[in-house]
């Protein structure tokens, strides 16, 4: 999908470099304690990364807006489909910052409420995808052989169809609605995590510190959970951050097509879709929800970029 690509690119570099970095630490500071020292140093570096911090601030603001929307929004009833025919299609003004839509609803209030849907869908899609993809990738990478072949061939099949098209097909099969669109996107999203973690685990499995753990007689479960998986955390976190943005983008796309959120839900993609009918004379109806999507996705991208630079300084940004 969009967007696996960017993070795929990032993770390739991260994959090679991160393992070397953390491995050194593991050996020096004793197994298991390494990643924590790195995290602290990474946090310090992240705070100096201006664009990353800007992304984080925008995201925190979005979260606050999503939580407090009913209190911040000047016309909270408009988010749930209130109709004021006499106020229809008013241009932006002090009483309606982003103007009003065809039903006379305040676009500003609806955009604020839209943050709830977009954030929830982005988090849900990436969360479910990581919950499916990370364990599968770890299994495939650690055990290799048939387990690896079976898991990775299934992953490959999902990757033969561009994400948005596959999500459209699954979404259509499940029936329209934001919940079904979320399920559809999660089913499309997990292969990216599976591939990332499989590659990481495959590389880590051959590292000296894993051999060392084997030699001292650590049980397999302990090796996987205490020694290998913590070392895949950095690239997985970077991917999660970037993918939340891209998942929001894809969900908005599905809603724009009509497979996702249905009107009068104040979802940004659905609002652009409706507003399109009022272009160009009533431009504000579609323009502001679109800007909101852009800002949110941009913020998650900046956060992901900043995290990558901070946690893995050797990777090229």
């Amino acid at each position: 999908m969009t967007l696996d690509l960017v993070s795929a690119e990032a993770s390739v570099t991260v994959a090679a470099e991160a393992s070397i970095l953390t491995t050194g630490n593991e050996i020096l500071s004793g197994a298991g304690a390494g990643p924590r020292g790195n995290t602290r140093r990474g946090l310090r570096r992240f705070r100096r990364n201006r664009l990353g911090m800007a992304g984080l601030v925008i995201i925190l603001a979005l979260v606050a807006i999503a939580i407090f929307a009913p209190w911040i929004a000047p016309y909270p009833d408009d988010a749930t489909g209130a109709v004021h025919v006499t106020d229809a299609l008013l241009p932006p003004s002090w009483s309606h910052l982003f103007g009003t839509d065809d039903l006379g609803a305040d676009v500003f209030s609806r955009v604020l409420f839209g943050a709830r849907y977009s954030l929830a869908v982005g988090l849900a899609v990436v969360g479910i995808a990581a919950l499916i993809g990370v364990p599968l990738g770890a299994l495939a990478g650690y055990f290799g052989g048939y387990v690896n072949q079976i898991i990775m061939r299934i992953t490959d099949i999902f990757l033969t169809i561009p994400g948005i098209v596959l999500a459209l097909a699954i979404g259509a099969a499940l029936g329209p609605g934001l919940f079904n669109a979320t399920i559809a996107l999660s089913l499309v999203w997990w292969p990216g995590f599976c591939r990332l973690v499989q590659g990481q685990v495959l590389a880590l499995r051959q590292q000296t510190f894993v051999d060392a753990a084997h030699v001292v007689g650590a049980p397999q479960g302990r090796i996987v959970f205490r020694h290998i998986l913590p070392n895949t955390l950095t690239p997985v976190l970077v991917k999660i951050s970037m993918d939340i943005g891209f998942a929001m983008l894809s969900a908005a796309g599905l809603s724009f097509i009509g497979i996702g959120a249905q009107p009068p839900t104040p979802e940004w993609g659905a609002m652009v879709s409706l507003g399109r009918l009022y272009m160009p004379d009533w431009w504000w109806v579609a323009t502001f929800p679109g800007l909101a999507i852009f800002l949110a996705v941009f913020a998650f991208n900046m956060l992901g970029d900043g995290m990558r630079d901070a946690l893995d300084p050797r990777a090229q940004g």
Partner: protein
Amino acid sequence: MGRGRFLIWRLVLLIPTVIGLTILTFIISRVVPADPAKLAAGPRATPEMVETIREKYGLNDSLVQQYFDYVRGLLHGDFGESILTQHKVSSDLAERFPATLELVLAAMFLAVAIGVPLGVLSAIYQNRWPDQIARLFAVSFVSIPVFWFAIILQLALASRWGIVPLGRRYPTRETPPDGPTGLFLVDSLWHGDWHAFLTSAHHLILPALVLSVAPLAIIMRTLRGDVLEVMGQDFVRTTRAKGLANRAVIRHHVLKNAFIPSLTMIGLTFGWTLGGTVLVEAVFDWPGIGKYAVDAAVRLDFEPIMGVTIVVGVAFVVINLIVDLLYGFLDPRIEY
């Protein structure tokens, strides 16, 4: 392994991939829906119509039997029917695919033509202002909702200033170029018809530009990373040490080596662009398979959506095959 044998081996490997693809689309159309027959018959179907479809699909048979019937249908070009128009999905797809192909190829051409020089420039000026600006644009471009960007540009460039047409592939009152490929740019050149060529290009430019924005950004970022990596290698230091000018080092030594890994990314972005057509064609009323899928989605016309999914999947598989072959062509070190 020789080149010929590699080609054959790679073609053989297509078979399991395509089988996997059909299993996936089969599961989506027959296992995922609560009632596949009802879904295929559409929201306004009578019970009799649903029953006809149930009969036709053999939905009471075992899933394995159903799968083999499904594949047999696909092999005979049976992609079902559109409930809206009663047209065969296969002929609809054949009619529309060239429009999508032309749009995707034009967008990828723009993405490579703009993205590659920007990526190289960005790497050469690493961390200085041309690089900072290029990187900011790259992050912005992948964050833009493509359907919204399409609407905004359509509003500005077409509605307000009238620089380009609002949409469609060709003016409705004129006959589009007719030819062997279905790609208007190619067909009009084939006939030596400059008017048709310019008219087609005029309609194509805005949708292609909008569609190229995300792949452009991704290609730029990848190439920047690859160029930086190659520039840090020993052989580049050697070329500098023997006194070659910076420009010559980059042109003759760095670019070729950096371009090879970027090729994979270009192949992958092709897939994204194919997906992006779904959103862009809908805005520009572009008569391709993307708009076909969206029109079907709005009316819950299921079979056309599945048809588009299969065609896009197969197209992506073929593109990856071509990239693999190009790889070997560009990099003589690769042993098949």
